[in-house]
């Protein structure tokens, strides 16, 4: 009699756990987006009327973030980016994402010849904790923009150096990422400043 009761309750417990996991998994899939869903989300919410978004990965050893940059669209509108964060189910990712933010600045005015967009923000790590170091992104479509190189001053504590690098080019878009800013160690601060953008002929076309 006792054995039968133990068996019955064990069965209910196992069933309950399976049910809870199933509900959790359904919730996970219903609240996250596949890569194609992310792209569709961009197309539905674009302010630049872009018909194509290039995906650029995080660039770090764990690709936690996915950046979708407008590759075309209205050239009179600002450059556009949508940022998604990979969401894990336990330790499994299933390559699913959730929307974080997009560039939502107002229309580019006549005086503003800026050919790049930027976002300065703080990411979260795998455990969901906000990271102390800041991330600074620059991005744009190749269409109507000929930015090929950039120069910046990197300062760590009192030491500063000037660097010149080529931009990262994706499919029809370009992208620059600085991370862990403000966060060199307990005594020193890491910053980037005097960021300059050059076209393929070496002309200065933008300053941040």
């Amino acid at each position, binding site marked *: 009699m006792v054995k039968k009761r133990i068996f019955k309750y064990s069965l209910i417990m196992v069933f309950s756990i399976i049910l809870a996991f199933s509900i959790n998994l359904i919730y996970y899939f219903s609240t996250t987006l596949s890569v194609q869903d992310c792209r569709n989300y961009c197309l539905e919410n674009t302010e630049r009327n872009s018909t194509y978004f290039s995906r650029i990965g995080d660039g770090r050893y764990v690709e936690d973030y996915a950046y979708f940059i407008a590759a075309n669209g209205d050239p009179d509108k600002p450059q556009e980016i949508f940022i998604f964060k990979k969401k894990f189910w336990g330790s499994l990712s299933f390559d699913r994402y959730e929307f974080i933010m997009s560039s939502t*600045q107002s229309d580019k005015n006549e005086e503003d010849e800026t050919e790049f967009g930027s976002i300065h923000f703080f990411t979260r790590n795998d455990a969901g904790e906000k990271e102390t170091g800041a991330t600074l992104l620059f991005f744009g479509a190749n269409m109507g923009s000929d930015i090929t190189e950039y120069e910046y001053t990197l300062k760590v504590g009192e030491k500063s150096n000037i660097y010149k690098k080529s931009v990262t080019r994706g499919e029809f878009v370009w992208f620059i990422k600085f991370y862990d800013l403000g966060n060199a160690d307990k005594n020193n601060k890491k*910053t980037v400043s005097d960021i300059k953008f050059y076209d393929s002929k070496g002309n200065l076309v933008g300053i941040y």
Partner: protein
Amino acid sequence: MKYYKKIFAVVLAALIVLYTPCISFASNSKTGGNSSEYEEYHDQINFDDLMLYVVNKTDILVDVDPTISIFKKIGAKNQKEKYNKYIKEHPEAKTEMLNMVNDSDYLCAISYTDAPLLFAGDHYERIPKNNTANINSFGLKAKAADISITSDASLRHRLTLKTTITRRGTSNPYTYYPSTSGTWENSASLFDGETQPAGGNDFVLQSCPTVTSSSVFRSTYNYSTDGSKNGQEGINYFLTDGKDSWVKYEVVDDPVGLAQLKTFSLGQTFRTRTTSSTKKINSYYIHTWKDMSVSVSVSGTAGVTGGSPSAGVALSFTPTIKDKQWQLYNFVSYNW
């Protein structure tokens, strides 16, 4: 029927067990709750569950982080409302926060206490609670017998004592930078300043829950003092007391003279472990218009550098004069 009830109970228990780790409410500050006898408003905004980001270097945006749990989102929404209220009341703070993000400073929390004041001829008075006459734009009331009531907008003022916490570091324990600042809104104009006697120096104090490694002070004035509107160490402000986790700075303030204090800021640095319970940083401003000194009593001990913080270190004061001075207190609670 009984069988189904049991199944339901077990399923419910399993769901609770499974979801318990997700149910971790953010520890948020509570509005008000001070025991001051004067009118004041206190609030705190925690940014850990908010997204704070800058678009195109010029637009700062604050939103609930969509990646946090549904339970944390409830608390985060409340923090966002507090932020909106803070910015509405202190529009200049938006630029300050914009600069912080552009400088890649990680903002943990902002706590502030607003104190409405009246300019009473040659000094500022705080406004007592439980008053009857409606007097100013802050919607506050004062007893006509206590303070000369005026409808002159130039005589109405507000002092904001604010503490901002930023942190640096790649892992726990982090280095924290609490900065307490005071801002006089609508400071008095120059009332024959050069012929008025100078007011006594004011005092700014801050105590931390962990031993601090350094402190820094700055002050600015409405008019040039010794060729600059920026206060100078040894001339306009002085470190006059302190122990391992607290400091007392004395700062020149002459409300009707040249040295009309406009802003001040006091920062310390400490390194401590993040814990699951909140600890306080206490900030105090003592304003006077007569020369006096202040002795400090300390309760509580500070945690060691890199270890867990203490419950907090509280300060109490004994001024050498009983009248012609008042105090303003602000605190910030955080999971150090």
